[in-house]
């Protein structure tokens, strides 16, 4: 014990120790810095009740929010990753996969489910950003394609919710080819006049942005999402100037004519259902 600690009265010493607060009870909104109850935030679909900032949402939570509870099932879960290049930087790719599985409980970065939104049947593919930045490798590509095939077989719409940094480096050119593969699958959906809705959430970048993300019959963005081909840092280094305010955000994309609409997450379910029935020339779903 140092001389200073000996000098301090016992009461002050005790107060220097932290009182324990249960982990994760409070969260701070990264946009407006409001301190929120975690349960309030989750109850509001991870949208800040104070400033409307749309925080990221895990894939399964999003599917839960969008799909009717009855009659949903997963597609393509049997497809799991391998390491075709024996890729190793500071860590092995297989170790990164294992760690991502540990963290997320997912085998890869895309979860596909068949179900219905307000009774309108559809297949939804949803990116899990927490799995290696939602990057697209062979499994993401294959699950996407199986989802599209299922939609064709069942004669229903296909929806993709993107949240991704782009193609997955660790699978090299196999990842790049997934851009061609996924996009090609959509041509068959189109031949059968089945709707494809693309929802861009924060972030949708690189190889996903530059393949199927903008090919939607309707392209929807969530408020404030970062969407673009090249990352802002890369662009800044290339052009050596400061990027304009709000660059590559949904509102910027809407202004430039790149997306059809910006939809608040809390309205997404009804919006998707409304769009599907319009495209299919059906009566609106009863809600």
């Amino acid at each position: 014990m140092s001389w200073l600690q000996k000098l301090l009265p016992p009461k002050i010493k005790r107060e220097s120790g932290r009182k324990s607060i249960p982990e994760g009870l409070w969260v701070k909104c990264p946009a407006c810095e409001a301190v929120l109850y975690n349960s309030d935030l989750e109850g509001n679909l991870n949208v800040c009740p104070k400033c409307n900032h749309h925080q990221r949402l895990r894939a399964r939570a999003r599917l839960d929010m969008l799909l009717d509870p009855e009659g949903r099932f997963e597609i393509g879960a049997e497809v799991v990753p391998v390491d075709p290049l024996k890729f190793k930087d500071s860590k092995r790719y297989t170790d990164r996969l294992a760690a991502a599985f540990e963290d997320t409980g997912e085998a890869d970065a895309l979860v596909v489910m068949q179900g219905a939104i307000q009774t309108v049947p559809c297949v939804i593919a949803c990116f899990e950003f927490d799995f290696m930045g939602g990057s697209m490798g062979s499994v993401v590509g294959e699950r996407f394609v199986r989802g599209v095939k299922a939609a064709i077989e069942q004669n229903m719409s296909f929806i993709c919710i993107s949240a991704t940094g782009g193609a997955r480096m660790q699978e090299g050119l196999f990842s790049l080819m997934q851009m061609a593969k996924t996009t090609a699958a959509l041509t068959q959906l189109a031949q059968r006049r089945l709707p494809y809705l693309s929802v861009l959430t924060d972030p949708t970048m690189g190889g996903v942005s530059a393949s199927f993300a903008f090919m939607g019959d309707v392209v929807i963005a969530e408020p404030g999402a970062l969407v673009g081909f090249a990352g802002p840092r890369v662009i800044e280094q290339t052009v050596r100037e400061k990027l304009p305010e709000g660059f590559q955000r949904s509102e910027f994309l809407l202004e430039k004519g790149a997306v059809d609409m910006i939809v608040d997450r809390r309205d997404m379910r009804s919006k998707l259902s409304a769009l599907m029935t319009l495209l299919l020339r059906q009566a609106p779903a009863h809600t």
Partner: protein
Amino acid sequence: MKATFLDFEQPIADLETKIEELRFVQDDSAVDISEEIARLETKSQALTKDIYAKLTPWQSALVARHPQRPYTLDYIEHMFTDFEEMHGDRAFADDHAIVGGMARFNGQACMVIGHQKGRDTREKILRNFGMPRPEGYRKALRLMRLAEKFGMPVFTFIDTPGAYPGIDAEERGQSEAIGHNLYVMAELKVPIIATVIGEGGSGGALAIAVADSVFMMQYATYSVISPEGCASILWKSADKAGEAAEIMGITASRLKSLGLIDRIVSEPLGGAHRDHRAAAQSLKRALQDALRQCADLSPGDLVEKRFDRLMGYGKFKEQQVA
């Protein structure tokens, strides 16, 4: 044209300098040293062969970016006749980083499209170092549609560091432009034959490379991200590009063994930049074969075959779901 040597070619460069000096001396010398020159030339060739037989992936990338490497317009000049260059996307501008137009291939009308880099500083800037903006991809798309309308096969030549990462490119929808090309190329009803002649840089390369046959020149590279980009993400330092090139698998031989490309087109000794004409002749033979393979297919069969090929990309395993 004086040859430019890469760092790893220094021993060849030294020999060539020596040969050059001897030739200079010979001109005004009474002694015949032609035998000595011939000996050194043989040695230089053997050395070149030796060095090029053992290129690392990174060295391959340097050859692919060689300042004297043949570009799309060079290949067009040597392989096609009656080239009619066409310009513009009809919406915004003409992008000089992508060239295209109609031409004849052994007399047959066809469409050629390719990335174009610049040779000198002024042209490099004009061509934006071979990095297209959305209008470049939209020009390519327009030309492909035109080819489809008139039943012409499409030849594409890939040589880009990547699509341009600029503010204007983003504003005009770089992502949409690339994605749209992938979509249309998947169902285009005429043969598409793509060759990576230099750098195959990521989505910016793929945007004109969805094809029935995909070839690579021997020392070309094709990758999901540049080695520098990969290194700066994984090691936070672009200096590790050599290691990144190694692990990513970017060379023609590696990609051929992975089943991602169809054919490696051999280059003249010491790389395509040593002899543009010979490189073009080698490629022309490969293109003729590819065209012959598509010749008997109906448009429907062609598209179906291409579709199956695209669906086959990817390595994964299937397991029982609990």
